[in-house]
């Protein structure tokens, strides 16, 4: 078994040429086909979101009892996915985990696109999306009217906007040396554009020094965000009074879940990138194995959290709390609960086997299963808690409408569309950082 982080004997130039080739050369037909398909999805997304803006969210399957369903499920899912990118780029950098060097670029890109998808859900879930800026603490003409600092949704606004801006900044700063590399390899207008984007990078020792310092500072800034963003997202639920939401375990449980699903998404994307861009030498089995280990650990944390919830529900002697969990297990949405359990608790346990966790096909399969499972986790938390809460008279069922499904498919397409553009126009692996690995 090969344990190295880079396979083959690559000179510095080989690395540059290999990684830049998708950017410099014309894309192949598979890329075009994928782009076309995802563009169709983007059109569907555009149609759906415009309809929802135009007619109102009555187009969705929500009702008076279930006020959030697929919208917030998808929002939390996308934000959660983003977490792996920040973890890889920030925490692993601080811990000097070199294996992150070949995967951090794609992971960060994934973070940004995932957060964009999440933001579309934040906007579209509002009844009057054109007034979204009222949730920002802006000076206004309404007199002393301010936002409600007690509301977790306001915390969300801060958390996510900070997260998005820091992530974009971090990603862009990391890109600068690589943009300069592409600048040096390209001609014509392309060269002009990359020159502009690389901000006059000259690869001097001074530049490198500053670059390293800024990276470290940003990594330091991002590190708490990895924990804080999903903690705050979990507060949307934890600070409420709804049984099944009102739980102190939510912050760590959500963070673990976010990293869990994020790593699964990184796996999915990197296996595709590795295969399609021929980056087998840079994204090796070693990377995949290490990420699988993270999936195993976080998946197990999530599993423990599920069991803790069940225990506390029993231990609380609160009939409402008890009922919610019984309802999850054997109520009308029992299938969602058991899909969640199978995907999130049982499937990662296969990673105990070295043979399985180094098998690319199997990893790919598990990574998709985990993301399905994590989507269902949010669905179970949101819908099963809401649809049967305190007063039995208001109990309802939730059924998604066409627009919810199409928006979800559309947002995945949007994500893939952006990712495809990313691997075409920007280096999918951090050239300079991979070069560092060859020195050792």
């Amino acid at each position, binding site marked *: 078994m090969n344990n190295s982080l880079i396979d083959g004997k690559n000179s510095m130039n080989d690395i540059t040429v290999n990684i830049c080739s998708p950017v410099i050369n014309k894309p192949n037909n598979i890329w075009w086909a994928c782009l076309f398909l995802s563009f169709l999805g983007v059109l569907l997304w555009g149609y759906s979101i415009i309809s929802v803006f135009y*007619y*109102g*969210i*009555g187009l969705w*399957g*929500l*009702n*008076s*009892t279930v*006020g*959030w369903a697929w919208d917030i499920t998808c929002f939390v899912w996308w934000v959660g996915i983003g977490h792996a990118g920040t973890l890889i780029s920030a925490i692993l950098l601080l811990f000097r985990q070199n294996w992150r060097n070949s995967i951090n670029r794609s992971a960060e890109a994934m973070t940004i696109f995932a957060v964009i998808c999440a933001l579309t859900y934040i906007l579209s*879930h*509002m*009844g*009057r*999306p054109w*007034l*979204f800026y*009222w*949730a920002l603490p802006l000076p206004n003409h*309404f007199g002393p*009217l*301010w*936002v*409600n600092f*007690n*509301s*977790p*949704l*306001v915390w969300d*606004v801060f958390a996510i906007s900070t997260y998005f801006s820091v992530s974009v900044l971090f990603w862009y700063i990391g890109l600068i040396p690589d943009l300069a590399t592409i600048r040096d390899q390209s001609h014509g207008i392309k060269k002009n554009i990359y020159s502009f984007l690389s901000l006059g990078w000259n690869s001097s020792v001074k530049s490198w020094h500053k670059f390293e310092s800024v990276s470290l500072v940003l990594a330091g800034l991002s590190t708490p965000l990895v924990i804080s963003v999903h903690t705050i997202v979990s507060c*949307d639920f934890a*600070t*409420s*009074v*709804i049984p099944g939401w009102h739980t102190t375990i939510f912050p760590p449980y959500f963070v673990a879940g976010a990293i869990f699903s994020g790593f699964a998404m990184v796996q999915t994307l990197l296996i595709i990138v590795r295969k399609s861009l021929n980056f087998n030498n840079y994204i090796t089995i070693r990377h995949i194995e290490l990420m699988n280990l993270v999936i195993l650990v976080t998946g197990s944390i999530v599993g423990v959290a599920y069991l803790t919830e069940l225990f506390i529900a029993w231990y609380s002697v*609160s*009939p*409402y709390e008890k*009922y919610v969990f019984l309802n999850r297990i054997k109520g009308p949405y029992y299938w969602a609960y058991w899909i969640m359990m199978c995907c999130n608790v049982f499937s990662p346990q296969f990673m105990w086997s070295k043979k399985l966790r180094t098998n690319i096909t199997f990893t790919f399969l598990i990574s998709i299963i985990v993301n399905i499972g994590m989507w269902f986790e949010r669905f179970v938390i949101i819908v099963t808690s*809401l649809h*049967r*809460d*305190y*007063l*039995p*008279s*208001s*109990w*309802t*069922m939730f059924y998604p409408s066409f627009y919810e499904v199409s928006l979800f498919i559309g947002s995945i397409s949007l994500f893939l569309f952006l990712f495809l553009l990313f691997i075409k126009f920007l280096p999918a692996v951090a050239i300079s950082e991979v070069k560092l690995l060859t020195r050792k």
Partner: protein
Amino acid sequence: MKNIKSPYSNKIENNNDSFKMNRRDFVKKIGLGIGMMALSSCTNTPVKKSVAYLTKSDNVISGTANYYATVLNHGYSVLVKTIDGRPIKVEGNKKCPISQGGVDAIEHASLLDLYSKERIKYPSLRGNRISWEFLDNLILERLNESKKNNKKIIFMSSHIYNPSTINIIKKFTDKYPNIEHIEYEPISYEGLLKANKIMFNKKIIPDYRFDISDLIVSINADFLGTWVSPTEFARKYIKNRNIDSIDNNKMSKHFQIESILSLSGSKADYRIPIKNSEVNIFVLYLYEKIMSILYGHKINHANNFVLSNTMKLQIDEISELLVNNQKKSILICGMNNVDTQIIINKINWHLNNYNNTIDFNNGYNISHSDDTKMSNLLDDMYNSKIDTMFFYNVNPCYNYYKKDLFTNLLINNIKLSVSFASSINETSDNCNVIAPDHNIFESWHDILFKKNVYSIAQPTINPLFSTRQMESSILKWTDNNINFYEYIKQYYKYNIYPNIKNANNNPDLEWNKILKNGFVELSNVQEELKIIYNNFNIKESINRLEKIIKNDINNNIGLELFLYEKIAIRDGKYTNNPLLQEMPDPISKVTWDNYISISPITAKKYNIKQEDVIELSIDKYSIELPILLQPGQVNNLLGVSLGYGRTNCGKIGNNIGANVFVFKRMINSTLQNYNFVKWKKTKKKYFLARTQINDGSENRDIIQELSFKNRKNNNKYYDKNHHYSLWSSNLNESNYQWGMVIDLNSCIGCSACIVSCNIENNIPIVGKNEVKKKREMHWLRIDRYYTIDSSNEENTYVVHQPMMCQHCNNAPCETVCPVLATVHSPEGLNQQVYNRCVGTRYCANNCPYKVRRFNWFSYYDNKEFDYNMNDNLGKLILNPDVTVRSRGVMEKCSMCIQRIQSGKFKAKIKGEILKDGDIETACSSSCPTNAITFGNQKDTKSRISKLVNNNLNYKILDKELNTRPNVSYITLIRNK
């Protein structure tokens, strides 16, 4: 001077040249012009329609409400609130001795019929508009011709209790003796009326004094829902069952023996399910049992029939109780059969209830129907003896049990048919001439609904369309040039005025007083009640009853079908009213539909599931309706409500459900509301729009129920100081702390409050599909929970719990709103700021009571929601004091903040301190049973403070969540 040029002179000289602009200027100007045109066409200039008050009457002040006393559909006086000349709300008339301030759902909602698109706007002949003169000539010509040819003319009307109208019709028949007046009611009390006529020579329904009776036994009579005068009965019934009465250690006992689960059954202390075909056996046995207790007679006849042992034991118990409660009990029966009613009357007579709890001196003049005349009429029509028919307030083409035959004969054998309908219906559709009547809000009437209460209905708006009151038309056709208003006034002067108690010397002043109060009490002679034994023979009655019972047993081929009226739709008169369609049925919580209700046990037996479609057939007629599993209903019986399946009443009511009037049948010249039908399961499914899907309370502490005996050992005693807070509150800043106490004992679930709230607060109607998605907008709902007796599954008890925003002092919704769109007022109100709301719905999710309602779509000016808010006429009903909410905004009960504000202003203007009872919310003011008490909790003398401190008071979910609601409930007590 020549050389000096004025700075303007050049321009003046070159005036002609100004048109010679160069190309650039030309393009600029054209560009500007096109740009301006484009810009100005971007905005829709709103067309504002307004009419100036050229001659303003003194008492109409724009924006200020005036109240007028009038009478609407149900015979009691109400107040109509008008603003700027348009009626916008119906309120109770507290002084009215019949309703005592209560208003039912139909009276509230009938306001929408005034502004309905489906009203008939002008007189017409075969669908073409004609003038009233043309119509008058046409009819007069026909009347005279018929008179000459001695052809029969039929004037068919509903039962009329308006003395002037009766007089006018009499004049009409006097002038044209060939006119026969037939009173026809689709749902009548003919059996009871005839029994009273036979036994006491009084063809009226007596007043049942539920307020002074200790024992109420009702056999299939839904006296709280639809029977005789439910609004009045409800108020009386609750008088010795509400919290005040319970605190005085007094509570009546109520037995309800019934086939379906009715509103009255939902309040009963004991329910006994019985098939309608068994009611006669029940009555027979009860009669003989009571006679055996009282006089030692033997039980003969009842023993001929099978009656279960448990039922016998129950009857024995009821008989004992009835005998023990002589003079203080009421026995009523909903069976429309003379002989059954004679036996019931006989029992009441022997129990000495007449002149005590049953009062003929103050009876109801109601729902008489000439069923025999109607049968003969069909023969006459068939034999072409009739050439002209008039229809006033009746719709036999829809609700006569032989409607198809009637319709055919009307179309083919009647030369001239005249309908006075004010909005389209099946009969008016088949008439060649329509002489549209005013809407009830535009008409004058005098009313003698109850023998000693004379009321006046006065118009509250000028006629909106080219309509004319039926009475005016007839006055014209009888060559009376007096207008109807004068006619009523004269009638009053000569016939009513002399009978008025403590009347003013001047009849005109007295008249004004009646207009102001809405009614006047008459001094009727207290007549002694005598039973006329010569007129009837109880043995014959029993024999006839036995024959009916035997017949029923023989006919019982399939399942028994029981037809009943729904609280809101009744006989189908209100089917086209979207407010009433959307009002959930108080028991089944189904909106917008009728259905076959069946007990879960029977459904299991025949393998029928919820919402399966079943075909019912009799002879050649068959209908298909979905199934609703109804706990509490008797086994082996299907319940279907009347009033649906209309084909021509307007866009809203057409083709909803199925018409089941055809299933009625005639026995001994009265129409029966039960029949035996064949049924067949189809493979179809049909989904009902229910507002409550889960039926039980899951043993949660939401409902607190105690028996009358154990009410003082209330171990669930609510500790008001169980929570301590370290937080300071803003509640000390104000002298007011608004709150509501809802007495679960008084609430009968009639849903009048829901409709009242809808109209007061401009709550949109969303239609069946949205209700199916559980998106009804009602701010106030009535939660209905079943408690099923585990020993006897048929025996289900019901709790009604009105649920609206609880105005929590620690409101979960307030903390989570990101934009502070929901905030707490110092007066304890939880306020929703529509303008600030961005619609995240977090507040609704976090509300443990789930009372917040979201505007999923724009419900006004939206053709998808084609109800009153989609057209200018319908919008006239909107309350100008309440905002119409836009799409994407959360809304909920505001405790009628507009009423609180106006109450405070009124007090301030007068310089007085606000008194308890000065402000009432829309729900509390219209409640027929005063179940809802609104008031200031800081005022220690107020009624609400007393109720809040009552031992039986509890707050929902406060113990668990520390929400500290300002709405609290009084524990339900059953007299067991």
